[in-house]
């Protein structure tokens, strides 16, 4: 079976009908479907993943996931999705009163078709960019739409828990669309995990549309298991004087490619991308973190920190692209990886593409081992080698952890990192 088989298209159509998708949306899927095979894979410099099956042909099926008890916490503003099922959307009444929209993507398609048509794969990411974006557009099977109206400033973060259902064979093709209208503010925290032990694909996209004077802090902790092969594409389009902060902890255990991008479109738009990645076992991960300065006096910063254990491979590319005409633009990046094993392979590549003279741009990159003097110092105080190593690593990751939006998320990130390190250290 392939994507253009009548039977496959019919299965997809059935799924689309059962979700009551509008005709234009179905046509968009169909068009993308016809392009999958002819488009090429995205490019991650210095990272070879061309034999990965990232666009698997699997009969599309609607599937209701059983909601095991998630947790009993009564905290508000929590959205939980498992597989294709939305389990909970608990919002503060005050948020609802302000006209904020938080809903699953298929409900949004029926209730707010104009908004979806305007923003979905139409301003940040385009379906025809490459094989994986077209695959996503054709087969998207779960998602969330968030709309923050003008001047609405949310103090509490929106917490989104996305659980891939690996109890059956079906990829998770998830789309999170966040539109922050002018002068609005929002913090979104996503946690990506999985339940079950089927081998599955995960193709997750985030589009952030940050309009004039808005502020968006997007934070993600990715913890997909070894059995999940994942493609993460997160992109923000940032308008005049708008600001987008990214704080990302890429802690997947399976093969992962990721593309985190900020398009600084407006004048004086700003973005700050902080990314941590830890690779373990025989995992391979390739990450592009990109900033494109288009608008005048735009500022884009990238800070990346990677830790490699065992036989893993991790490639960090920091891509700074300053477009001709972006006078006074500023692009800084710092990419550092730490190798905890001599069998690991790490890369930290700054890639600067500058087509404008009147700019400030800088970069720093390093690939290093744990500092022996620091280890000796800590151990001379009675701290055992694995604990000392974890302290040194935590120090190395400090600048990114400190950027996480709230203390409980920082704590959770530190705990997850510790757990991953302890597991990885066992085998070293």
């Amino acid at each position: 079976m392939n994507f253009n088989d009548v039977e496959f298209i019919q299965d997809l159509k059935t799924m689309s009908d059962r979700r009551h998708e509008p005709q234009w949306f179905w046509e968009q899927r169909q068009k993308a479907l016809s392009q999958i095979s002819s488009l090429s894979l995205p490019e991650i410099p210095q990272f070879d993943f061309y034999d990965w099956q990232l666009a698997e042909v699997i009969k599309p099926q609607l599937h209701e996931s059983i909601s095991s008890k998630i947790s009993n916490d009564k905290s508000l503003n929590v959205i939980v999705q498992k597989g294709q099922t939305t389990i909970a959307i608990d919002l503060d009444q005050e948020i609802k009163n302000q006209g904020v929209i938080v809903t699953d993507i298929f409900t949004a398609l029926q209730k707010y078709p104009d908004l979806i048509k305007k923003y979905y794969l139409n301003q940040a990411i385009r379906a025809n960019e490459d094989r994986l974006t077209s695959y996503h557009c054709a087969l998207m099977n779960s998602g969330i739409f968030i709309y923050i109206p003008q001047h609405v400033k949310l103090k509490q973060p929106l917490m989104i828990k996305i659980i891939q259902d690996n109890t059956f064979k079906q990829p998770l093709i998830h789309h999170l669309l966040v539109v922050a209208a002018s002068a609005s503010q929002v913090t979104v925290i996503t946690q990506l995990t999985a339940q079950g032990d089927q081998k599955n694909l995960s193709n997750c996209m985030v589009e952030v549309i940050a309009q004039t004077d808005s502020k968006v802090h997007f934070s993600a902790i990715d913890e997909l298991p070894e059995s999940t092969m994942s493609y993460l594409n997160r992109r923000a389009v940032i308008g005049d004087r708008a600001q987008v902060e990214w704080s990302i902890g890429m802690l997947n255990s399976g093969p992962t490619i990721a593309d985190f991008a900020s398009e600084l479109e407006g004048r004086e738009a700003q973005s700050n991308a902080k990314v941590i990645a830890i690779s373990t076992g025989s995992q391979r991960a390739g990450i592009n973190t990109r900033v494109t300065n288009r608008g005048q006096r735009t500022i884009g910063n990238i800070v990346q920190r990677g830790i490699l254990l065992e036989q893993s491979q991790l490639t960090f590319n920091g891509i700074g692209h300053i477009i001709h005409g972006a006078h006074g633009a500023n692009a800084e990046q710092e990419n550092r990886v730490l190798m905890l094993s001599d069998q690991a392979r790490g890369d930290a590549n700054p890639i600067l593409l500058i087509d404008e003279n009147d700019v400030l741009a800088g970069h720093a990159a390093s690939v290093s081992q744990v500092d022996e003097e620091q280890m000796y110092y800590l151990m001379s105080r009675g701290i055992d080698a694995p604990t000392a190593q974890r302290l040194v690593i935590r120090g190395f990751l400090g600048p990114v952890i400190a950027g996480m939006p709230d203390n409980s998320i920082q704590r959770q990130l530190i705990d997850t990192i510790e757990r991953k390190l302890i597991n990885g250290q066992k085998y070293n």
Partner: protein
Amino acid sequence: MKELQIKNLHVSVTTEEQGQNITKEILTGVNLTIKTGEIHAIMGPNGTGKSTLSQTIMGNSAYHITKGDILLNGNSILDMPVDERARQGLFLAMQYPAEIQGITNAEFLRTAINARRSSKNQMGVREFIQELDKNLKLLDMNESMTERYLNEGFSGGEKKRNEILQLLMIKPNFALLDEIDSGLDIDALQVVAKGVNSMRNQEFGALIITHYQRLLNYIVPDVVHIMMGGKIVKSGDAELAKKLENEGYAGLRDELGLDIDLVDEA
């Protein structure tokens, strides 16, 4: 009473010079016994192996023991890694402490204290803070020092005080103090000495390494050893340090009839 015994210790260091590995013997047979309740001082000219001795006792892997032994309470510690030696009661106040960003001083101190305690007997937050406040006061240190990252951006003097703060918090049986007086003004020197003196009791012994007699006016040692050419050439009481201050190392060398080149000799 506890005992740290150094027996006929020979140590060499391998350095790379112009692509060639050159092995040099630094310690040429050191004998020394320190008991808890005693403060010993080692004085000696530059390049004579004082720091090598302290680093070797702590277990720094850059120093290779070719002969001899180090015994703690009668048991050899040569096979113990650095952290185990520390947990057995040794402490080295370093001349050049490492800087570690992202870990606060307070967090580090608690981790270090609890590393030598059983999981049932961990020091609680309240007890820790009380102890910390007391020692900060003693050392005339600002509370904000504990929330700063470990040694990061500390001045030379702040680093030395921070080493002594760790000493007071960790409470080892034996402290090796490697040139804790270097780079300190007289006020800071007195504070550091006050910290060390507060540790003086029957459960604590120290080996103070210094160039100058001045520190020993504030921390009066029970025994003074003079080290030259990689071994101890003379031992005595606190008066020996004063005599040395007057005569210099060259004078002592000639008096003892030793054939040793002094590094800084013109």
